[in-house]
């Protein structure tokens, strides 16, 4: 197996809020190798966006990394001096942001911003514009020249998401983090963007992290998946195994709730009963126990990470049995 390009190792992140400390990430670990597309799924508030932000260490002011590491090519970026961290951003590790409506500066043209984003490249401005133009064409913008002269509000949501993807690719980064790349879009736009990302991954050399709550996106794009719940990675699996042999009850519940998976019309949409535990006082045992149909007395004690195969593991007392 190739060396991990990006490794998140037992990361703990706490938010200091007005209502006390909140554990957003609790020992989350993840590995991404060159050429892999990694999916990170979970419901809102499970910590997946915190995980994404930690990859470039652009966490909100209130966040504090209490332990763990984010290693890029073996170096812990959380402990690099700020200037060295900044040098990695956009150049080695690039983000495709959620909500393209607000991701760009409203008073600068797209051209000005796409040139600024290449600030580290020692090439003339004209060359930067040429590069931006080529990438806009690559992501399927109909008129790249016009797009460069446009302001963000003059583009549609789908177009802005395409520009956001082009922007992330500008410096040819080795790690690409897509934080909910399709969430703000309608269904047809979503399909187009998924199509584009699939198309791009064919000739992309690095690793891609796709953060989403949409299992369809995972099935379409990813090689391996990490399922997150209440700040923990509860299951890790190759995409086929995840859909066909899920081991964690939460993963099973997520798949059961995915409308894309129904074959018969149903009068009631299935849901997972209960809600996320309060992360100010995380449960000592399994965090999913309160909502789990399989929960027993033992689930009140911390669950073990059970290795099912070299590529699949689940954080569950009951994962050892047959699926």
């Amino acid at each position, binding site marked *: 197996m190739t060396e991990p390009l990006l490794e998140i190792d037992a990361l703990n992140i706490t938010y200091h809020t007005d209502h006390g400390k909140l554990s957003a990430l609790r020992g989350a670990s993840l590995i991404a190798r060159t050429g892999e597309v990694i999916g990170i799924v979970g419901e809102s508030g499970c910590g997946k966006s915190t995980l994404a932000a930690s990859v*470039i260490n*652009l966490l909100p002011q209130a966040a504090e990394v209490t332990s763990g590491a984010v290693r890029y090519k073996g170096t812990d970026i959380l402990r690099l001096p700020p200037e060295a961290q*900044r*040098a*990695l*951003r*956009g*150049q080695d590790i*690039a*983000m495709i*942001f959620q*909500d393209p409506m*607000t*991701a*760009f*500066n*409203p*008073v*600068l043209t797209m051209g000005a911003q796409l040139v*600024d*984003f290449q*600030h*580290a490249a020692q090439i003339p401005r004209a060359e930067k514009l040429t590069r931006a133009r080529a990438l806009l064409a690559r992501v399927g913008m109909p008129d790249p020249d016009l797009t460069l002269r446009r*302001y963000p*509000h*003059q583009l549609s949501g789908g177009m802005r998401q395409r520009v956001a993807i082009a*922007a992330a690719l500008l410096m040819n980064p080795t790690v690409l983090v897509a934080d909910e790349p399709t969430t703000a879009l309608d269904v047809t736009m979503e399909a187009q963007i998924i199509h584009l990302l699939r198309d791009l991954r064919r000739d992309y050399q690095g690793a891609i992290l796709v953060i989403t709550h949409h299992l369809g996106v995972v099935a379409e794009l990813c090689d391996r998946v990490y399922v997150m719940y209440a700040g923990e990675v509860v299951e890790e699996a190759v995409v086929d195994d995840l859909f066909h042999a899920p081991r964690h009850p939460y993963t099973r519940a997520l798949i059961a709730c995915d409308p894309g998976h129904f074959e018969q019309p149903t009068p009631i949409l299935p849901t997972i009963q209960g809600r996320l535990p309060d992360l100010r006082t995380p449960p000592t045992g399994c965090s999913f126990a309160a909502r789990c149909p399989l929960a027993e007395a033992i689930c009140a004690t911390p669950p073990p990470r059970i290795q099912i195969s070299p590529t699949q593991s689940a954080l569950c007392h009951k994962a050892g049995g047959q699926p």
Partner: protein
Amino acid sequence: MLTYAIKRVALAALILFVVMLAMYGMVFLVPGDPASVALGPRATPALKAMLTERMGLDQPVAVQIWRFFANAAQGDLGIDVWSKRPVLDQILEAFPQTLLLGLVALSWALTLGITLGVLAVVYRGTFIDRALGLVSVSFISVPSFVIAIYLLLIFAVWLQWLPAIGAGKAGDIPSQIKALILPSIAVGIGWVGYLARMVRASMLEIMAANHIRTARAFGLPERKVVTRYALRLAIVPTISVIAVGLGSILSSAVFVETVFSRPGIGTLITGAVFKRNYPVVMGTVLVTTAFYLLVITAADLLIAKLDPRVRDALAR
């Protein structure tokens, strides 16, 4: 954009017309006829009749109003009742003095206010932020004439570093600059605090925006993120406040020019009001209102120029 500009100028002209009409009405609302008020209780009837005729008050009201507007449109604002000099000449002498004072005061207030506002954001939550907040609020709450009197006492009377009154000798630039220092501090100091608070508030909001996170995620230097990506945007709502500011600086000039005995619109207007010198009062009000409207209209056009969203909303 051009239609918008034309609309704005037309609106400004309309406001000016209404203001002048209201001003003119005031002359008739004041008890007693303007001529006897101007001349005082011991005036002879012959003198009154003469003044009434000279001021055109013997004509029907409609004719008076028409004459006033027709003359004003040709740049003739009437004759001073007392000195018999054309009002326009006096305004043209006084106005540049006030404008100079206002511009100097506003430019240093802008530079310092924006810098302090940005510093408070860069060091938000620290001792520097809290200290700047305290200083800004004290600057805002003290009236400019109180500051003017204290400045006079400290720097002119006690330390004797700077002149207490006047605008400096004509043609002697260093003495004119010296004479400008204290008044411009008195006029501008409240604005420093106000601008610092405003810039801080709008910068704080913008620094939390998603596009700032984008700029940082692309590794842009923090200096560039603050100036090009945040401040450029934070300045837009400040512009209209600055425009109103330049207008109200003209009114605070009334106090400051009185305290420092500087020639200017403020001195002219107070003198004229005390002497019931209606042509001068109306002329100065006309010119200051016109100036005020000009600045506000220019600010609106500048905002449309700086913010493409406003520009596009107007085009629609």
